[in-house]
């Protein structure tokens, strides 16, 4: 069988500082989940490295992982799939304590965690299939919090939930991050959800960060045409439906016959140029670097940056 190599993530450089609430946004296939797995050292990158508190971590080297395993935990999208169907909820929550050798009364800690995520103590005796989707996700959150991590990675934590319970779980997550002073990495395709929990946002497109910065700036005045397109795609209630600008109708149009197809691998130019309504000849030739409006190199940590030739001035709308 021949396999095609797809680079899931390329040239992604991200810093997460203690206390950050970083949202990572992207469509399906943009490399979000790969990024989550790399952050947790569940997989090793082919190139590059993941550092935790300054020291590199590798999935293949268990010795150096202790601090990461204790401090970084994950909540997955599908709570039914992320809880062992044959384990009672209490046992599932106690698993990390057992595995990491956390001292103390496990039953008491489980009860404490159940309370923290808003479940009755009796839930410990249930099996996952006896709970609702929202309750299951609460259990998954409790399990992630069990070893008292400092970083929580949430990979689409509310996407599989009913809209009616989504807000509850989101608020719970918000409260818990606040209460325990957690650093949050929140991965989602849903900009509305990210806006709700994140202070800082990075937008992934086909394995690269195309825009990064404070949530207000990125979501309020997006600099990259891809982010703009994403924001336009968010359904809004109440607003009038406006016709898209004439340019936007040229989606997929190839400027000067230089477009690259979606899976043609890394071309020379901007990955988005083949879809971009604003693309110029230069976009297909030269790959733009992620940079802020000011200096050409990395600006201060929180700066609004975009990987687009036309961002911040030029022909971009502000």
């Amino acid at each position, binding site marked *: 069988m021949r396999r095609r190599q797809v680079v899931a993530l390329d040239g992604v450089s991200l810093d997460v500082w203690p206390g950050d609430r970083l949202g990572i946004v992207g469509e399906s296939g943009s490399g979000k989940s790969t990024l989550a797995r790399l952050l947790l050292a569940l997989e090793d990158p082919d190139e590059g490295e993941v550092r935790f508190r300054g020291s590199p971590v590798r999935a293949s080297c268990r010795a150096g992982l202790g601090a990461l395993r204790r401090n970084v935990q994950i909540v997955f999208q599908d709570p039914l799939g992320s809880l062992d169907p044959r384990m009672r909820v209490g046992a599932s929550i106690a698993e990390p304590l057992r595995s990491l050798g956390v001292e103390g009364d496990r039953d008491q800690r489980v009860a404490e965690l159940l309370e923290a995520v808003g479940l009755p103590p009796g839930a410990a005796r249930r*099996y996952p299939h006896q709970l609702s989707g929202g309750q299951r996700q609460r259990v998954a959150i409790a399990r992630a919090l069990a070893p008292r991590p400092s970083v929580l990675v949430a990979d689409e934590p509310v996407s599989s939930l009913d809209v009616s319970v989504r807000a509850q779980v989101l608020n719970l997550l918000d409260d818990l991050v606040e209460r325990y002073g957690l650093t949050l990495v929140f991965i989602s395709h849903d900009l509305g959800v990210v806006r709700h929990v994140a202070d800082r946002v990075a937008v992934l497109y086909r394995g690269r960060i195309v825009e990064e910065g404070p949530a207000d700036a990125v979501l309020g005045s997006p600099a990259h045409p891809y982010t703009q397109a994403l924001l336009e795609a968010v359904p809004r209630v109440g607003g009038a439906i406006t016709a898209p600008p004439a340019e936007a109708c040229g989606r997929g149009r190839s400027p000067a016959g230089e477009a690259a197809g979606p899976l043609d691998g890394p071309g020379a130019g901007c990955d988005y140029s083949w879809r971009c309504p604003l693309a110029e000849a230069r976009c297909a030739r030269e790959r733009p670097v992620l940079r802020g409006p000011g200096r050409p190199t990395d600006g201060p940590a929180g700066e609004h940056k975009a990987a687009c030739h036309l961002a911040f001035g030029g022909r971009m709308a502000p």
Partner: protein
Amino acid sequence: MTLPLGLRERARTGVEVAPELGASALGDMGLARRFLSCPAALIGGAITGLLVLVALVSLVWTPFDPNAIPQNVHLLAGPSGSHLLGTDALGRDVLSRLMAGSRVSLYAGVVAVVVASVVGVPAGLAAASLGGSASEAIMRLGDILFAFPALLGATTLTAALGASTTTAMLAIGIASVPYFARVARSGALAVLSSEYVLAARAYGQSRPAIVRRHVLPNIAPLLVVQTTLLFSVAILAEAALSYLGLGTPPPSASWGQMLESAQATLQTDPLLALWPALAIALAVLGFNLLGDGLSDVLDPRLRPVA
């Protein structure tokens, strides 16, 4: 007295329902309920239960000594008050021999299952969790074993170790190793690719711990089904090998061997062959039904992926 269904269930099982969680506290006993509502499992369970009961009873009591050749007894007597199923060519009581034979059949199943699972399950688990070329090596070894005729294996082992039930079932057990390895591997692969295993890795669970705490409990239903089915295969194989003289040696009563000795008088006393044949058919049917039923009853969500 009629109670609403929910109450009746609660009264019967004593499961307390936490009102705040509502839903299905009855899920705890769902297994028993599903078993009882599955005809195949129920009938299969009844037949195998009967078989086990007969085997246990035969340990302490049979109408006559199943193996001793009695004096002053009608040979090849038809069914009568004292010999319910008659006597065989040596004057031994057929019912007693049938009862004693059930023990041999069950013993055969146990030996085959123990051999097949003790070798096959760890091999399958190792293949699934190691992956790569180690997995390839283990599974190709299994394929070779799979391609090797079980009868030839049994003949060879008998030549080396002498004919006995244990030798015959050793051969059947070895021949069944690949089945157990495959089932264990495919079940384990499904579990290992799940997000709860990913989560377990994120909190530092070691690979052996993941296999022990997550994989084994989740593939147990598959193995139970496989075990039940192997019992029926083993009973049939024991009968066939004993018939061929490769299994249980005389004078111990074994259904296959009873069939073989009845062959000589088949023309005059066909009933003598009928009883062991019926016993074999019934036992095989029972274990097959039980296996099929259990595979429906136990976790229908988790089926082998490959």
